[in-house]
């Protein structure tokens, strides 16, 4: 697992260095986390949209991204109330 994390962080750093993003926008999958982390270190803003299938608790990706994201959208009001830092703006589906 440690090897995987190191490897994905390295890959993410390469991607971020290649793309030089100003903003990273991501949703759902955990593959976002290393890219967001590296992007953050490189000065990008990170915006995260939690998956709509989460209603009363954040996903694992969501919990990690809560520390990283500059703006965090959730798709249910109930979830927003539980995590006041997040923003509710309706649902995509």
């Amino acid at each position, binding site marked *: 697992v440690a090897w995987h994390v190191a490897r994905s962080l390295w890959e993410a750093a390469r991607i*971020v260095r290649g793309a030089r993003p100003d903003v990273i926008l991501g949703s759902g999958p955990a593959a976002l986390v290393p890219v967001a982390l590296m992007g953050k270190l490189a000065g990008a803003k990170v915006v995260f949209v939690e998956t709509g299938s989460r209603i009363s608790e954040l996903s694992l990706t969501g919990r990690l991204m809560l520390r990283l994201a500059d703006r965090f959208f959730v798709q249910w009001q109930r979830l927003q109330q539980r995590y006041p830092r997040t923003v509710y*703006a309706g649902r995509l589906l």
Partner: protein
Amino acid sequence: MILVATGTTGFDHLARAMDRLAPALGEAVVIQIGAGQYVPQHTEYFRFAPSLAPYYAAAALVVAHGGLGVCLEALQAGKRLIAVSNPDRHDQHQQDLLSMLAADNYLIWCRDIDRLDQAITTGRQIALRPYHQPECSLHLRLREYLAGLDAARSEPQGLGKPPLWRRIRFTRGDPR
């Protein structure tokens, strides 16, 4: 027609249960089985479709797994919905969704697949609350946020100094 939707990964329990009940239902049943192993014997079935919209349109009743997409699509199509949470999934988020939607009386939540026939009988009769999609302003809020970033950048202080990491490790050529 009764549409049964088991999601892309499939939900053999549900496909099997509906296949067994189908002959007694007095109505055509079509099962979307996804990547499931079980192949229905008594009903029409298909694995995937680009959109389930034509199936919803033809259906009087939808029986589905607890996936967000299928459930909200069926409700928005104004269909009576019976949802069965898939216990094979790695977490319990389907139960979470279904318990909330069932508490608000938008759908029938079948918690015990052995009693699916009763759920269908109930689902055919009971009055359910119509579901209205809340307005989504996510795109506007995103645009607002990005515009805010642009404005901050054009001010003299900008977004502040670029972080140390950017200056030593990630910057090639002249920094913006």
